[in-house]
């Protein structure tokens, strides 16, 4: 143990988002430690099965039959795949985003954002992928909002995605195509240029009358191998 070999094969140094005070204060400065190969096991967090049921794929209404939220209803569909491009089946996908005015239904956004809440939009939902790793959701296209008034930093419209299941864990943000704010957003720009198309939803055929975007997710990690759950 403690071989120089392990030390030299260190992990990544995580990048800091420019002009982001929280990123500057919270991103570890030291190189990550690689877990020694001999100690690697396939056990990554696995939410218990009883919690893996969720049918909250329509964010545009608080409940079926309630009024639709303001703004443009959109569909987002895609597949979740592992690094061997196998489907990530029956895994929990959590999504959240701002309303059409660029306001989150979150107490932290209450003191800093003059944009109105929408009484018909909470902006979060949960769903589970099918046996082909497919998901689909309906939401409102989020508005842009200003993140730092002092430097005029706007966040472009984006939807947050979280994928958690037996063997996979990813949190990312989906951006929209043809948004001029994308190229000025420090959080978007920290993505290497060659990978930026991976976080932009692609226009797709309309879905039940809604403008639709395709957002496929490929999850990295040699030990993030999704097994069959049953």
């Amino acid at each position, binding site marked *: 143990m403690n071989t120089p070999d*392990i030390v030299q094969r260190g992990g*990544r140094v995580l990048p800091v988002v420019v002009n982001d005070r929280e990123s500057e*204060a919270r991103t570890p400065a030291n190189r990550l430690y690689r877990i020694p190969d001999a100690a690697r096991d396939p056990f990554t*967090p696995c939410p*218990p099965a009883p919690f893996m049921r969720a049918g909250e794929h329509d964010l545009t209404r608080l409940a079926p039959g309630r009024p639709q939220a303001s703004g443009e209803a959109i569909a987002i569909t895609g597949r979740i795949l592992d690094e061997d491009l196998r489907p990530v089946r029956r895994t929990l996908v959590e999504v959240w985003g701002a309303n059409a005015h660029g306001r989150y239904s979150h107490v932290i956004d209450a003191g800093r954002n003059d944009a109105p809440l929408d009484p018909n939009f909470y902006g979060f939902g949960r769903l589970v992928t099918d046996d082909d790793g497919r998901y689909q959701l309906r939401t409102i296209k989020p508005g842009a909002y200003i993140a730092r008034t002092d430097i005029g930093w706007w966040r472009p419209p984006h939807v947050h995605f979280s994928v958690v299941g037996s063997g996979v864990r990813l949190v990312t943000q989906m951006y929209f195509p043809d948004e001029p704010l994308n190229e000025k957003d420090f959080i978007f720009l920290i993505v290497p240029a060659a*990978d930026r198309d991976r976080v932009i939803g692609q226009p797709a055929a309309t879905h039940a009358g809604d403008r639709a975007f395709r957002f496929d997710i490929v999850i990295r990690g040699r030990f993030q191998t999704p097994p069959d759950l049953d």
Partner: protein
Amino acid sequence: MASEDLKARFTPEATIGPFYPGAFLTHLPQDLWTVAPLVAHHPQGQPIVLVARFFDSLKRPVPSLVVELWQANAHGRYRHPQDQSAAPLDPQFDGFARVRTSDEGVLRFYTIKPGAHPVRRESAEVRAPHLRLTIFASGIDRLITQLFFDDESSNQSDPVLQSIPDPRVRGRLIARRRRTSGGGEGVGEYEIDVVLRGEDETPFFDDWDG
């Protein structure tokens, strides 16, 4: 080229940002000792509470930081399809929780002390009892680390803990047992400071391929 098309291009990770929905916390277990309100069942093993304080580079507490905890049961068995261990499962223990730090940057996590276990079924190397943390917060992408207990002699041979060469850095992953327990009678209380950046920075791990 077809082979290039087939090669996976990974989706980049991003921060959860400041507006992570609180409902995502309450939808998943937050307390692994209490099975459900007013239920008499409890998992097997020694009940413990972990008190973890999270700090940034300026030693300020980090509020609204989300931690996903994952651990073996008291017998060292994970409730995971790939755990081939002969150790028993515990009907009352799933081992997954999602919790959030308070406005003071403090996390109180009620669970049972996990058992030691071999790395894999035939493996000679033994993992000391530990908690696996996946950490999210505004300003950072996913961070992972593992926390150990200061009253476990198996720490001396744990292959993950001992892969950190500097003993002072290693010590930052070891929670200290408090002499007087504030967690209730019979509950072992452990405390640790997790420093995301700066002096006394906690070691974090990389689970990507090299």
